[in-house]
């Protein structure tokens, strides 16, 4: 019941928003804010109410949905230690994305409705336990994302939005084939059951099934070389969408790989693990090098995401409990940190109307608050100790070192690169000589801006100084996966 409310409350809010008469369209943002605060509160309550000692799924809802004889589908939701933190991440970033776009005045009803549907879609992905229901939520995100980028974006928005759609459809076609082959061979779409079954006798070899699913999730993560949609989508998307995209949409890919590929087909995952580590390491390095060359602030953060999500894949490749916990933690930490970073970039863009690094500089004088937030987010991103990213990266590297030493060395070099590009960017944007064209611009000055920055920054610190809060929850879920891999 809790999960049903959590998932569909934003959708209900979207419907309400669309029903608003034109004269009342100013109410749209308040409805969206109310809904996102409500789901945030609900998810936090569920987080603390969650029984950490218990493995398996909690808050389970299960209903018959589609029964056509040859296959049965269920409305089946549940959360375990892997999905619960991701649900909280999603609600937190939904609230953040509503707040950073509080000043949107262009067609606000459609805008907030899209954001809310997007939130429903991601929340559904993180707790759906029927493979077809999962796929439905996965695809639901497509249309609102397309609109958000194509209508409220900037630059080559049509191109970017279409590219996003085509890449996603390409990936999900593969995923769907994988899902169907898997489910038909086992006679069930139940993810919990599939995660306990010995998969054999599929219509095509299990290696292929794994690959198909992996392509579907890999496009979203993204992995090099399927990542080229990401920088385009990010740089042309409005701020709130960048926050959601980097913060939670990419995590759908990592979550999918962990929940589906690794849990359902652990044997194949073990055979392919060296490829995971290799692709992860290449993504880290390639992403890092490309980031160094970026001149657009948003593209820079986008490419750094490619690099950081490579760390997730590296951790998954190690297939050890420490590394998997690190990978999960990295998803959370990166979600919050990059959400904050995109938020800061967006707030700066709202004022300066440029993302060109060369045109910025010395903003610490004109906008001290924004600059502080920016530097803080940057420190999070480069993995400063006591902030969330550090814990995640260290855990992944420690866990992976035993199995793939070489990959860890590449990864650590990637972290050095990230220190390089972040510090260099900060130097160019925040410090340096003051540019008088920005003199008259206001600093961070609205309550909604303060609350986003403060809230996300607090989360980054909490993740950095009190990792046990989340690790204790992730642990049992990862152990369940490890039992599968070990057997």
């Amino acid at each position, binding site marked *: 019941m809790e999960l049903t409310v959590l998932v569909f409350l934003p959708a209900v809010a979207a419907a309400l928003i669309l029903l608003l008469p034109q004269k009342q369209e100013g109410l749209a943002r308040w409805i969206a804010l109310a809904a996102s605060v409500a789901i945030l509160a609900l998810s936090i309550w569920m987080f603390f109410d969650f029984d950490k000692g218990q493995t398996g799924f909690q808050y389970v809802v299960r209903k018959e949905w589609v029964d056509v004889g040859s*296959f049965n589908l269920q409305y089946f939701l549940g959360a375990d230690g892997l999905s619960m933190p991701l649900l909280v991440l999603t609600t937190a970033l939904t609230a953040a994305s509503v707040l950073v776009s509080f000043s949107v005045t262009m067609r606000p009803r459609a805008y907030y409705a899209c954001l809310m549907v997007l939130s429903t879609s991601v929340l559904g992905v993180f707790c759906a336990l029927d493979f077809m229901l999962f796929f439905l939520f996965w695809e639901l995100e497509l249309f609102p994302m397309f609109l958000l980028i194509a209508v409220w974006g900037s630059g080559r928005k049509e191109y970017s939005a279409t590219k996003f759609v*085509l890449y996603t459809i390409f990936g999900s076609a593969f995923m769907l084939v994988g899902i*169907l082959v898997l489910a038909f061979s086992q006679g069930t779409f139940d993810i919990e059951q599939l995660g306990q079954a010995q998969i054999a006798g599929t219509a095509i070899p299990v290696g292929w099934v794994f690959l198909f699913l992996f392509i579907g999730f890999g496009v979203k993560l993204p992995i090099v070389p399927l990542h080229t949609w990401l920088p385009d989508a990010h740089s042309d998307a409005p701020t709130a969408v960048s926050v959601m995209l980097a913060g939670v949409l990419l995590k759908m890919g990592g979550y999918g790989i962990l929940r589906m590929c690794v849990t359902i087909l652990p044997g194949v995952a073990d055979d392919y693990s060296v490829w995971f580590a290799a692709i992860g390491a290449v993504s880290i390095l390639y992403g890092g090098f490309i980031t160094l060359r970026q001149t657009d602030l948003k593209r820079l953060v986008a490419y750094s995401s490619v690099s950081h999500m490579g760390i997730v894949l590296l951790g998954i490749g190690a297939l050890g409990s420490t590394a998997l916990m690190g990978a999960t933690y990295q998803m959370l930490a990166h979600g919050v940190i990059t959400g904050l970073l995109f938020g800061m970039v967006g707030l700066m863009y709202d004022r300066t109307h440029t993302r060109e690094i060369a045109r910025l500089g010395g903003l610490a004088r004109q906008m001290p608050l924004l600059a502080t937030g920016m530097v803080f987010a940057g420190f999070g991103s480069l993995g400063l100790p006591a902030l969330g990213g550090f814990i995640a990266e260290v855990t992944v590297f420690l866990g992976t070192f035993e199995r793939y030493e070489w990959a860890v060395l590449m990864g650590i070099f990637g972290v050095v690169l990230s220190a390089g590009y972040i510090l260099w960017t900060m130097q160019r944007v925040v410090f340096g000589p003051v540019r008088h064209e920005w003199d008259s611009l206001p600093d961070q000055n609205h309550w909604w801006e303060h609350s986003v920055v403060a809230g996300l920054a607090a989360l980054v610190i909490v993740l950095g100084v009190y990792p046990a809060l989340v690790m204790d929850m992730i642990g049992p879920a990862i152990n369940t996966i490890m039992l599968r891999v070990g057997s």
Partner: protein
Amino acid sequence: MNGIDVAGPQIAVLGAAGVILLVDALVPQQRRLLPFIALIGLAVSALWTISWVARDDYQTAFGGTLSLDHFSVFFYFLFAGITAMVVLASIDWVNREGRGQGEYYALVLTACSGLMFLSAGRDLITIFIALELSSIPQYVLAGWGKDVRSSEAGLKYLLLGAIASSLLLYGMALLYGVTGTTMLAEIGETIAWSGDANRSVLVVAMTLLIAGFGFKMAVVPFQMWVPDVYQGAPTPVAAYLSVGSKAAAFAVVTRIFFEALGARFLSDDWSNVFAVLAAVTMTVGNVMAIVQTDIKRMLGYSSIAQAGNFLVGLAAISVAGGEFTLGASGVLFFLAAYAFTNLGVFVAVIAISQKIGSDQIRDYAGMWKRSPFLSLGLAFCLVSLTGIPPTAGFWAKLYIFNAGIRADLTWLVVVGVLNSLVSAYYYWGVIRQLFTGASEDSTAIRTSPSIGLSLGVAAAGVFVFGILPMPLISAARDAAAIFAQH
């Protein structure tokens, strides 16, 4: 009297057509009532069908030539719904056109009764007459517009339709020659009893039947007329052709092939033919659709591609494990989902084209700012045509591809999935135009109540059945189950 009761749903529709002609002739100042009379006739027809469902007394009439069963009931509802939507979508256009209002609605209704008879016929002669009853009004309707292109469309449709009818008649004559009967059930029994003695003649007959119906189903290589006719015919009529006429053709093909030609040694042959036709049809349709710049031509090719998807269900007759009718139920479910979806698309196109006076896809640029409702409705239905959830189109594809996989037609399903990817390209091309770009003219487009209602119903159907497809799936399974007794 029993026969009239069984044929009640058709008679109600024909009766409404008669009333419309009378009202048009006798009280011409009340012409604006005509579409409502048509809607009332369709509602009476649907109620009559409901009364049969409530009586739960399925029976045949007129010496077994007309069958009231789950299958025909499914199509009675479908055709009444489709025709009602077409009538709603026609109101603006007919009012603007001005002339022949009574005749227009009367022809639409007559065609509807023909479609209903087609889905219920269990006798070759009844089927042929029903086919003509539905086709002749449609030939006239296709040529209804004032411009040359519409006349060309009407003539082209008529000529090719006549050729198709003659092929069909030839095939039916051969079947009669071999089996000595025109009743489908008896044909099936005779063939099962005599074994493959007359196989070569039966194969020729089957080929002719496929060619004849292939024209109506718009299956490659009998599809040449489709883009020209869709482009030239008035848009509401094109909508009617793309949904109603196609659905009826698939209904009757399903019935003939499953009931009369379902013998194993024959079905192995025709399921292969349908599989190949399916692959060719969807590929040709999709590839040709990509290069179109006129939205009606594009929809023509898209409807060809969709026909290829339906054929997968027919090809899947050899499903293992006693699920003989899985493919047939897939066809029915797909037809219903497609009806909602494609009507939604056409209604939006009608509304937009009327205002901007163009069918060019590039003129749809920035439509989002001029009419968010039309744009969202059109985009949602196009998403459904692509087969992306949460829409009815997704379940239709999933269901029919499932049947394909179970019938060991994995290669065909792979072709189908790849084709869906190709189709995403041109469907999203339209969506992209709608939501991006800018038009020179930025005046808002107001939608009339009838257009709003029909688009709303279509989009709601696509959405509701996209979330909860079960009622429609059950209905399709019940309808297809009538073939299971053989």
